């Protein structure tokens, strides 16, 4: 950690060359370690007194591999979007490190930050507010070239913008239109084209389809998948829709109250979840078949998500967990593969009692949940 910080200070303006080297497929391109983002809570009008902090992101670690899609799921307010903003350097990190190709980027500013921005881009959630209503589509997609003139020479920009429109499946003739003349799905394509303009290597998608109709969601998801193949992109895909994340992701991370509770390949998470929170989330996925719906066993969590300003001690999920015991109150579970599990169940899970949920046991565990709930309160 300290070594990383020192190297970042030493290389205040990293050589451009450092970012142009190719990372082999499957190797980490973005390494996040113990990332913390606390928003201070202050009191007083003139002399602000710090009375606490909202721990939006509190010690998150993961690797994003070159060419993969890492899905991040979790309910509203768990810190997914804050994580994206911190990774994009839109919010300064309170602590921890973010390394892109081995280079610490979370404390960069000025020209060095601008160089990193070329390589990490973002697609926003709401296509209705993420495009400037006073700019034409050509200006919106061409703006990256004005900010980074070295990417496309002045004479080629119009052509480059039209190519991008074509790539995302929009008519290149639309270059002089304004955003309000497009539908939600078309606008999101414009947002994606803007993200692609600088030929980045990583695109952080912050709930890119949750504001769209279901039929349009599929088209945008397919477009993102197609572009990943064409331009060799790595995605971090934030969403709260579990089925979309399963469709697009190679690996999935589950967040709860500012912490990553479980990380694994999509099969590991969806078929062999070992963290109780993940199991509860998965049991809430709607099942289309009424017969199957009857027989399946939903885990209904009681209570609300605790306030991130005052999270529970030990395991953050313990207040709503049916497995919670004395140990969960005292000891923070680490995100690591539990030694007592093997096979697909042996992936990173931050639970002292990580175990796959067995079908026969499901009913019992649900009942145990109710009685266990009473015990922990």
């Amino acid at each position, binding site marked *: 950690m300290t070594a990383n910080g020192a190297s970042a200070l030493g290389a205040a303006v990293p050589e451009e060359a450092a970012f142009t080297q190719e990372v082999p497929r499957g190797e980490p391109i973005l390494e996040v370690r113990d990332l913390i983002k606390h928003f201070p809570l202050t009191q007083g009008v003139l002399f602000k007194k710090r009375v606490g902090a909202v721990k939006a992101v509190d010690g998150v670690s993961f690797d994003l591999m070159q060419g993969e899609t890492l899905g991040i799921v979790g309910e509203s307010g768990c810190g997914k979007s804050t994580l994206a903003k911190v990774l*994009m350097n*839109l919010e300064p990190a309170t602590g921890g490190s973010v390394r892109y190709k081995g280079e610490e980027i979370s404390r960069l500013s000025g020209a060095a*930050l*601008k160089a990193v*921005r*070329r390589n990490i*881009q*973002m697609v*926003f*959630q*709401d296509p209705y*507010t*993420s*495009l*400037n*209503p*006073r*700019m*034409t589509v050509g200006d919106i997609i061409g*703006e*990256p070239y*004005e*900010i*980074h003139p070295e990417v*496309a020479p002045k004479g*080629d920009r119009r*052509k*480059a913008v039209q*190519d*991008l429109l*074509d*790539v995302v*499946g*929009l*008519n*290149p*003739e639309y270059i*002089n*239109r*304004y955003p*309000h*003349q497009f*539908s*939600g*799905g*078309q606008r999101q394509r414009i*947002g994606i084209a*803007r993200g*692609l*303009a*600088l*030929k980045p*290597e990583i695109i952080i998608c912050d709930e890119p389809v949750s504001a769209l*109709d279901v*039929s*349009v969601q599929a*088209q945008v998801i397919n477009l993102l998948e197609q572009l990943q193949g*064409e*331009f*060799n992109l790595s995605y971090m895909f934030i969403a709260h829709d579990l089925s979309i994340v399963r469709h697009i992701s190679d690996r999935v991370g589950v967040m709860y109250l500012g912490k990553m509770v479980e990380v694994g390949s999509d099969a590991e998470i969806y078929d062999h979840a070992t963290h109780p929170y993940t199991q509860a989330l998965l049991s809430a996925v709607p099942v289309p078949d009424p017969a199957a719906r009857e027989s399946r066993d939903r885990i209904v969590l009681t209570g609300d998500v605790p306030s991130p300003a005052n999270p529970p001690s030990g395991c953050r999920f313990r207040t709503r967990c049916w497995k919670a015991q004395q140990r969960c109150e005292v000891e923070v579970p680490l995100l690591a593969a539990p030694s007592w599990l093997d096979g697909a169940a042996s992936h990173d899970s931050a639970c002292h009692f990580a175990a796959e949920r067995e079908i026969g046991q499901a009913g019992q565990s649900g009942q145990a949940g109710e009685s266990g709930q009473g015990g922990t309160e």
Partner: protein
Amino acid sequence: MPDIHDEDSYEPHPKPGVSHLDYAGEQGMAVEQETLVERDPVKREEARSLWGDAWRDLRGRPIFLISAVLILLLVVMAIFPWAFTDTDPRKADLVNDYLRRPNWGDVFGGGWFGYDAQGRSIYARVIYGARASITVGIFVTAAVTVLGGLTGMVAGYFGGAVDAVVSRITDIFFGIPLLLGALVLLNAFATRTVWSVVIALGVLGWTQIARVMRGAVLTVKQADFVVAGRALGAGTGRLMFRHILPNAIAPVIVVATIALGGYIATEATLSFLGIGLQDPTISWGIDISSAQKVIRTAPYVLFFPAAALSVTVLAFIMLGDAVRDALDPKLR
């Protein structure tokens, strides 16, 4: 990674026309939009922006048309007063007694509206008086828009300590009554011209615009497209003037247009009180002031400059109202 702009590096996409039809079907709404658009190919590429929509809306509003015609007339009057009258507004001929009633038959002539106490043509003075009022109105508005706009932009954009300091300074100026402050400031000028009135009102009047601008900037600053600009690496200048300003300027334009009429009225008030413009400058305010002495015997001496002033102020306020309604989509 492959070059986006290299034709060979990605699979050829459907031809533009085809892809356009394909994607038109992605949403019911979109299909409807597309077909509507297709029916009228000439209009298709016409840029429709907020200002474009506002302009289309304004053209159909009688209030806007009336006020625009009036303002146009007043501006022409201010620039070319000699085109409206042959009479010298400063020529005082005591043969023309103010007790002689207006000569309604003398259309556009010196005696049309009668003569004032010094035997000067009231009609000519009403025409020539437009220049002072319009100049004060337009230049004060320009000054307060630039000054208040920049102050509000800085306060809203940077926030925190900068906002606290700038906003307190704004509050201090806001606390000075416009008329009292202008009286004190104008007293400092040995000879008062149109420009000294512009300076005095500009120095005192920018606070309202600054507050409106700050509020608008605070709202727009949060928008995702500004965050997107930052994520692209855009600098402060680009974010302020490319992204925030065009989206925050509408309420400022509205307030400024309405305030313009108020500044004209304030100038007249100051001139009436004897602290604004002075002879030989011709101003409706001065004429209203000098008409007091004869108001009981010859009320028309007061009536015409006062009517001109009221119509001018009303025209600008109506214009401001129409612009506000046109720019606010919720009122459409």
